[in-house]
């Protein structure tokens, strides 16, 4: 399932772009993210706790930035395994458009899960993925608007 | 690990068990009361139903350590045992009405059936076959098609 969204951020495009490339910012905004470490300019390792339906698991995995086209956008993709809970992966194409002092961020995201998490939580995957994607961009929006991300 | 004391089928028992031990595990593995069965892992099938302080409960979804001091009744406790021990009317009714085939769901069905008959009697309500079917919402049987289970409970209700 593809999810799309749009946010208007009261910050210049360069600022938004820098934030999108800042591991600390990403860590603060990815829902359930407990660890995020840069291993190169575009690669990070992550530990994320996800709960889908009755299954709650720690996903260890990698986050990578590809299709980088500074400062207009990139694709952020992540993939993690949670033991027998299965795996989760997702990606989002993020585009930034300058609009005066502000920036319009649009995204198209998709998510996939497999293993037990798909078996037991299938009914909830679409809605959970949507929630997680929105949460991330919400957090990001708030972060740049200096409201700080919500506790997840 | 936590020490838990409870009464199971009239006998005082205790165990020093990991906190995440389910009542079903405690009964089956610690007490070796294997009449309580596990048919699922999402609390849907009712094969594991026992009575706690007189209420029917799915033992697969109850933590044993939360039951300190509780009275637990399992399928094994319905009759005294021994050669000529009298069976509970619900047990007799299941035999009389062919209310079981493979027997795997049976302990849960019998424990659920006993509770529903008692409850309806206490409330002065009529336990119709439709009511029995609705009350069996949490119990799955794959063998009998429920026909004879409903008949068994109807029959037992006249004898309890």
């Amino acid at each position, binding site marked *: 399932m593809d999810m799309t969204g749009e946010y208007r951020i009261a910050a210049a495009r360069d600022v938004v772009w820098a934030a999108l490339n800042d591991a600390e910012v990403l860590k603060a905004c990815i829902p359930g993210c407990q660890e995020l470490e840069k291993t190169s300019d575009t690669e990070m390792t992550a530990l994320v706790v996800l709960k889908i339906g009755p299954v709650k698991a720690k996903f260890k995995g990698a986050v990578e930035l590809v299709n980088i086209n500074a400062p207009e956008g990139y694709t952020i993709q992540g993939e993690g395994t949670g033991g027998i809970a299965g795996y989760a992966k997702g990606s989002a194409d993020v585009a930034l458009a300058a609009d005066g002092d502000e920036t319009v961020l649009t995204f198209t995201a998709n998510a996939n899960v*497999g293993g037990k998490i798909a078996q037991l939580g299938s*009914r909830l995957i679409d809605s959970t993925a949507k929630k997680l994607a929105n949460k991330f961009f919400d957090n990001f929006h708030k972060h740049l608007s200096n409201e700080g991300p919500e506790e997840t | 690990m936590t020490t838990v004391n409870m009464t199971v089928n009239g006998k005082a028992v205790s165990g020093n068990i990991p906190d995440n031990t389910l009542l079903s595990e405690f009964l089956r593995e610690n007490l070796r009361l294997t009449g309580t*069965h596990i048919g699922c892992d999402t609390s849907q099938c009712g094969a594991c139903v026992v009575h706690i302080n007189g209420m029917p409960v799915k033992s697969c979804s109850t933590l044993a350590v939360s039951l300190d001091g509780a009275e637990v009744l399992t399928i094994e406790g319905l009759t005294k045992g021994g050669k000529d021990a009298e069976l509970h009317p619900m047990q007799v009714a299941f035999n009389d009405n062919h209310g079981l*085939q*493979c027997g795997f769901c049976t302990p849960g069905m019998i424990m659920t059936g006993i509770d529903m008959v008692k409850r309806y009697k206490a409330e002065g309500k009529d336990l119709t076959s439709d009511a029995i079917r609705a009350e069996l919402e949490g119990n799955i049987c*794959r*063998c009998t*098609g429920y026909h004879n289970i409903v008949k068994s409970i109807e029959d037992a209700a006249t004898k309890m």
Partner: protein
Amino acid sequence: MSTGIGARVKRKEDKRFTTGKGKYTDDIRNDNQAYAAFVRSTHAHANIKGIDASAALAMDGVIEVLDGHQLTGDGIGNIICGWAVTSKDGSPMNMGAWSALATSKARYVGDAIAVVIAETQAQARIAAEAVVVDYEELPAIAHVMKAMAEDAPNIHENAPGNLIYDWELGDEALADAGLASATHITTLDLTNNRLSPNPMEPRVAIATYDDAEEHYTLHTTSQNPHVARLLLSAFYQVAPENKLRVIAPDVGGGFGAKIYVYPEEITCLWASMRTNRSIKWTSDRSEAFLTDAHGRDHVTTAKMGFDDNHKIVGFKVDTVANLGAYMSLFSSSVPTYLYATLLSGQYNIQNLHCNVRTYYTNTVPVDAYRGAGRPEATYVMERMMETAARELDMDPAELRRINFIQTFPHQTPMLMAYDAGDFPKILEMAQDAADIAGFAARKTEAAGRGKLRGIGYSTFIEACGLAPSQAAGSLGAGVGLWESAEVRVNPVGSIEILTGSHSHGQGHETTFAQIVADRFDIPIESVSIVHGDTDKVQFGMGTYGSRSAPVGMSAVVKAMDKVEAKVKKIAAHTLEAAEEDIVIEGGQVKVAGTDKAMGWHEVGLAAYIAHNLPEGMEPGLKETAFFDPVNFSFPSGAFICEVEVDPDTGVTEIIKFTAADDFGTIINPMIVEGQVHGGVTQGIGQALLEQVVYDDDGQLLTGSYMDYTMPRAADIPFFDVSHHETPSPNNPLGVKGCGEAGAIGSPPAVINAITDAIGNNNLAMPATPQAVWRAIQATKSVAAE
């Protein structure tokens, strides 16, 4: 009260089950028990690049982590399909290799990759999560219609295009000619939905290696322990048969899912030897959904032609069947010899042809589930008849009657020679019981309440009593399908019956005892049944395909014949009378017409004391027999389902379900009715509720009772069950078998009733409220156009 044949004897086995004293496999715990947990593929299709068990091995209580390379390295053989089906071009079926633990490639979500052995079950399960498998994901096939696509990924190297076989039965030229001559042709596209058998007891295996004796014992949830031992020995190379004992204690339902030897039993046996520990594995329900063989999953196009007299003049069926990621034990036979052979139904059809293609997909292996092939055939046939009747504007019962086979034996063009039956009679019985005459009034009354009432028929036949060994062999079966029995009369006259049949809910301890009590006129309490243990019972073939009564009981009868002959000889000798004059009755063996008699127990004693036996007679009183049927048995039935649909919600209520069956001779009507209730309920489950769903990546989405809808008490009505007995001439008791009829006959009756109610024939199973509601909307929009 009589306890003989035909009596409603209450079950002897119930006391232990109603008091919680049943002994199921999971109730067994050996000294020093260790536990297994499996590492399973989370991908539907992936290369396995590596397995890192180091973290798991370091965890508390972990004894060993074993993988497929070690397993195959120890010479454990691949899992096989035991029924060879040949394609119409003469080529053999393409059986892909199935190792109990996958080595290089995982082919479905749930495919076992490694096993963790630990001191407790919890430790094993936690450690299994810590085993890291390095996957290289491959594109997956989740649906059979995608398996045949040009660009479909290849699942097994030796199955190009994922095709397992392309097989046919019948005469295509004749069928085409018949259709060409028809004045009316009905065409239908049908899907037979994929199901999960779901016996309430999940599978369990406890394997125990005895290093001193180099001997293995396997306690397992099996419908056929001897077949399991044969496979484990001869094909999977676990141990020679004399070093392997397989015990299937009380088994909590099977429905086909417990016929097969699965990777877990093989792995536990082998791991027991590797670790020198007794290894126990208990499936949880999630694992059962992921690994127990599924059933059905056919896609079919069928065409039937009628002449001016509404007689069927041609019938062509084209079916595509999904066999999953690997070929399970009987998988090849289900959509072929158990399916196409029954496509003549109860009807006289001469021009018939069926083509079947089977494919691999990245899903759980598909095999026999209650009915196995025959429900699929019946669904095609009976949806077809009802549809044709509507198109021809005829009474559906009348169209059936016109085409019924009237004389027996009847040879169909699809290999089968029907033994006996009276189809018009059972249809009439069902119609009377269902009060067809009053239906129009009930429909009007329902309409007054805003409800849509409909009625649907299904008149079906099945082949049971698997199977004449020679015939089965000529069709590709790897084994003979006879059954064995030993009748052991003890010195004090009590009797043990050792049977290769296996009871997992069918009540053999009662019905098998009934036929013995009936024959020797002794109390049923003095007869015990021994089954389910390869050390106690001579070889046997187990219970599936409604075979225990027609085949298993017949073996008991044959052994009883031998016992009776010896009893009469001993009595004649002792009582100084002629053998022909000896009769057995009332617990006595007597000389007819005199008061000379011996007690039944005295004959037993005489046989064992052996002080005074006829010249040359061996002591003892115990006889063994093997019964190999000369033909299948053919139970038939007429089912009528009456439903009420709420047009606003699409919710279907089954108002009445009437089943009239011909099972031949009935041993215990109470048990037979119970089998019908259970079978029909599974059929209603298929028609209304159940369906296994995979997403496009091959992830199983219906993996628990939250998403896979099991029939519950409130979904199911009381049943009206009646019987008409035309005894089968092919076995000594005249029995036909009753275990599967309900599941075979009921789905089309339900769908025929709903489609009748809503006036839209285009409705697939499961007819969930949403599906029914959509079908109703579709008719509305057509009407509006």
